[in-house]
């Protein structure tokens, strides 16, 4: 059926991927949003995947790491999923409700934050490390703490990271051992001269946030997780208006 010239120009991609969304399309097809290791966030149509017996070559699940074969035609934004299989199965994660809940939120953040069609190695590494951590035999932190740390890192990865070393408005550095005013909506510390922020961050928490953002597992005290999650949400609301996506 394909025009010979179109067929020549078609590009095939084979890459690891995470399923970010699956929306039914018509009777048996689905429109997918995938985060691909090599391509970033892409949309693809999966034909026949919602049939009672989908083709054995297409296995799609969230949370687990997939291997996908996608076809891209010139001038067409939507790719076509040819084949997919489970590449990295996270047996332990999918048996923990709190971990599942955190994983779902992390993937929704990625869906909101990742720009379309641009390879995002940092986002890929962050979400993969997060999911692997949740799947660990003895997780380093509670799922909510890990999620809060992921939120900080994702914000940083897309250029919305909190300014925690100095005033986000005037740049005045904050002394190491001082408490500081913080405003998640403004994106970090705000000095008194610039109007201050609604919250006071103790130096220990401020340092913990910095360490968590830099990737230290378990740096965030569990009791602070909910507060930090709220700040991440506020930052997302400001930048993307996606705060309501947090369940």
């Amino acid at each position, binding site marked *: 059926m394909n025009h010979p010239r179109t067929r020549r120009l078609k590009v095939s991609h084979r890459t690891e991927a995470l399923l970010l969304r699956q929306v039914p399309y018509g009777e048996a097809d689905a429109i997918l949003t995938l985060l691909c290791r090599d391509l970033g966030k892409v949309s693809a149509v999966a034909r026949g995947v919602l049939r009672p017996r989908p083709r054995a070559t297409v296995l799609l*699940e969230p949370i687990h790491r997939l291997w996908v074969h996608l076809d891209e035609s010139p001038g067409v934004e939507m790719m076509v999923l040819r084949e997919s299989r489970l590449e990295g199965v996270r047996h332990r994660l999918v048996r923990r409700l709190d971990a599942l809940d955190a994983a*779902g939120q992390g993937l929704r953040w990625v869906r909101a934050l990742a720009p379309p069609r641009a390879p995002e190695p940092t986002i890929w590494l962050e979400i993969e490390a997060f999911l692997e951590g949740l799947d660990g035999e003895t997780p380093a932190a509670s799922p909510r703490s890990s999620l809060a740390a992921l939120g900080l890192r994702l914000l940083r990865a897309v250029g919305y990271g909190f300014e925690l070393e100095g005033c986000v408005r005037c740049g005045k550095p904050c002394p190491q051992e001082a408490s500081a005013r913080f405003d998640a909506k403004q994106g970090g510390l705000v000095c008194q001269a610039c109007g201050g922020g609604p919250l006071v961050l103790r130096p220990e928490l401020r340092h913990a946030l910095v360490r968590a953002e830099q990737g230290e597992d378990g740096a965030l005290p569990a009791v602070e997780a909910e507060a930090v999650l709220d700040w991440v949400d506020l930052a997302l609301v400001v930048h993307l208006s996606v705060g309501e*996506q*947090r369940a």
Partner: protein
Amino acid sequence: MFPPSLRSLIEGLARLPGVGEKTATRFALFLVTAEEDYVRLLGEQIQGLSSSIRPCHRCGFLAQVRSPDEPPLCSICADNHRDRSQLCVVGRMQDLLAIERSGAFRGRYFVLSKLLSPLDGVGPADLPLEALARRVHEDGVREVILATPPTVDGEATALLLARELRPQGVRVSRIASGVPHGGDIEYADQITLGRALEGRQLIE
């Protein structure tokens, strides 16, 4: 080409599952020339569906509405020969029908109509947990069999239901999942094979 009302009928029919534009046109042309009594009755049946068929107030399966003040009760819930002590929880009506076809279950059902979905943010508050707990309590259910699908969402839902139901002192079991009958072990995915090995049984 077709008159407007026929055109819109074709469009309506084409939305039925398994029916494309071509089949819809065939149906429409058949109906236009069919016996008038047949067409009128068919029309009435379709029109009456939403008022005559309602979810069963006990299990969520399809039930005939008998009178406006009588809560709808499906044929399975109304059948006194079925075992009240076993309750099978399914995600969708289609799954109930499949289990019924197997003939392997003589208890009753509860249709959730929705599964937990971490990816879509569907949480416990979105599931009919209270109705299920009430059902278990009122019917004196001794075993709840969780028959949600073997997917991330289905497993998550099973985990949640088990956690919610156990304090009620009821036995909670999960249907086994594994290699399909007539299937090929070589082509089974890692999760299926893992589950099949975990759920292995002694041969006596």
